[in-house]
């Protein structure tokens, strides 16, 4: 069983703060991490590999050269090889251009039974690259998987679809996006991290290494463009009341009655 896992390096959005004076996003000092659900995908790939006879797990990422550290982290978790697709020409790619470029890298890898992705990233939060990649590669897909089982060339996936759970079956090769509920990613061991730097290489592919149609890559290959970004103001300029508890309760009840909010 050969598995490809797509990963993205993202800023840790829990660490992102807003400058109270300018209202701008403070990105300085925000650590870069593997997108959390991509880690679940790596964990699942390692589990599936272990239960099959042979095969390897490859992590694939598109991004700037700095993203190599993310792939090293994946190697330290135990994946067999790491490929970084990186080129200035890919900058500004939206999900269509990103999924196209990844699909061409996967065509170059050639041998795979399964592609696993995280359901969505914590920076862009689109959840689109997985299904779009499946479309470029003409593969069956399942999104938001909470359980994956493989028997021969049949994959069974259990997914939570809002209020229902769906069980789907498809033939390999297939693409599955996984939810963070599927497993608990392993912690990395320091000696494995060191070994990942010493013994394993991250392969980098540029534009020239892939058979790309130039109309589909980077900013020009991206139908969607960002027009503006802004920080949302939630301010209501409300009042602040400080009174004994009983009086507070009285005031709240009055507020509810005054606005006719109580259903009798």
């Amino acid at each position: 069983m050969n598995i490809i896992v797509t990963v993205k390096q993202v800023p840790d959005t829990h660490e992102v703060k807003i400058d109270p004076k300018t209202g701008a996003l403070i990105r300085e000092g925000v650590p870069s991490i593997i997108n959390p659900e991509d880690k679940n995908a790596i964990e699942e790939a390692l589990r599936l590999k272990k239960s099959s006879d042979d095969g390897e797990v490859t992590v694939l990422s598109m991004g700037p050269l700095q993203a190599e550290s993310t792939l090293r982290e994946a190697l330290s978790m135990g994946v067999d090889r790491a490929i970084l697709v990186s080129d200035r020409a890919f900058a500004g790619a939206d999900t269509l251009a990103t999924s196209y470029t990844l699909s061409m890298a996967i065509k170059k890898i050639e041998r795979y039974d399964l592609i696993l992705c995280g359901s969505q990233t914590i920076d862009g939060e689109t959840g689109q690259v997985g299904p779009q990649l499946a479309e470029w590669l003409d593969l069956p897909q399942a999104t938001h998987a909470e359980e994956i089982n493989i028997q021969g060339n049949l994959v069974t996936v259990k997914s939570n679809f809002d209020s229902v759970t769906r069980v789907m079956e498809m033939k390999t090769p297939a693409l599955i996006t996984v939810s963070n509920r599927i497993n608990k990613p392993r912690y990395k061991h320091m000696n494995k991290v060191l070994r990942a730097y010493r013994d394993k290489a991250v392969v980098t592919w540029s534009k020239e290494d892939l058979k790309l149609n130039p109309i589909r890559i980077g900013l020009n290959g991206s139908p969607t463009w960002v027009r503006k970004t802004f920080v949302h103001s939630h301010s209501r300029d409300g009042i602040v009341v400080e009174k004994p508890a009983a009086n507070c309760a009285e005031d709240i009840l009055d507020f509810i009655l005054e606005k006719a909010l109580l259903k009798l």
Partner: protein
Amino acid sequence: MPVIVHEEKCTGCKLCVAACPYTVISMQEEKAVLLPGCTYCGACIDTCEFGAITFEDFQGRLCMDVALFKGTHVFIEHDNQTASKVSLELLGKARGLADEFSRQGKDQLVTAILIGYELGDMADELIAYGADHVIVVNDESFKMYRTDIYTKAIVQIAGVKKPEILLFGATAQGRDLAPRIASRLRTGLTADCTALEICKDEGILLQTKPAFGGNMMVTIACPDNRPQMATVRPGVMKKYPRDPDKIGTKEVMKIDLDENDFIIHIRDIMASTKKHVKLEDAEIIVAGGHGVNNQQGLKILETLSDELGAELGASRAAVDEGWIGQDHQIGQTGKTVQPDLYIACGISGSLQHLAGISQSKYIIAINTDRKAPIVSASDVTFIGDLFQIVPVLKDKIREYKKRTD
């Protein structure tokens, strides 16, 4: 930038015929020939393995013939009996966009795409909720949602109708389906939008969505490709008031399916056994955060919530602590709510939480920290201990209800 076929390279393999979403390629004497109506989407160029199809005088960026596209289409999610709430909200929004288009001197129809089996009078309901036209696909194969053939059906409809805008709910289904369609149509898609408007100068759709955990809002446009596609977050747009006298038209479409189209098989669909928490529809929500201290603290909020006939919500902090289930979580990574009254107890108000509650009509906060971000985001903040205020409030409401009984 018209598309041209280089006859000498064309092998007559017909891959381009299958790839063209707009069905404007035919074979004549074993060579591909372009019929009128090409939108310049370039799908044939991607597919041709022999370099036999190219754009003439390509200028660095693909620009489709956007003038060929008209109207707003809304994909309707349903349970074969009733349309989902978000689908009706989308029809309401599409009506608003049509009004804006008509102010700009452009007549645009709102079309609902209704796919399923034994759909009853749902099409009439969609008209009552704002659709001018309903495209109905009624076939047993479509009884359950399936990514494969639903993609094919909507691509076929979009190929024939060429909508300028195509909307989906940002539900599990919408977010499974829309990206696949966008790829096949070679167009842009914006995920999980919370605002849609028509740009006054360019007449294009401006799509706003949260990013970076609700820390930032991004406005995205798709200027050169069509349809302009978006998934829209449930609970954000307003329904159009139901008007049973509204007039609309219906049209039945057949989708050509063969066995190769079925690549994903549904083995089972199980309803969640958990009690469904209806935060999205709640008129009043009582919610607790880190300040409730433990599971017991949330129980105190629950007694107030029951007294008010409200739903119980929680911040991510409370859910992460394991005090309450994830289906109660409100905020960017949980649910977006729009109650008449939101009572935030012991919630400091992280940005990602505020993003989920900002559409509440009134927000009351009970908090010990005067400097917490929830204070400026609320209409009234009571500085005090929720363990003292909430039980008294519950008793007072009970007394009031008895008095007026």
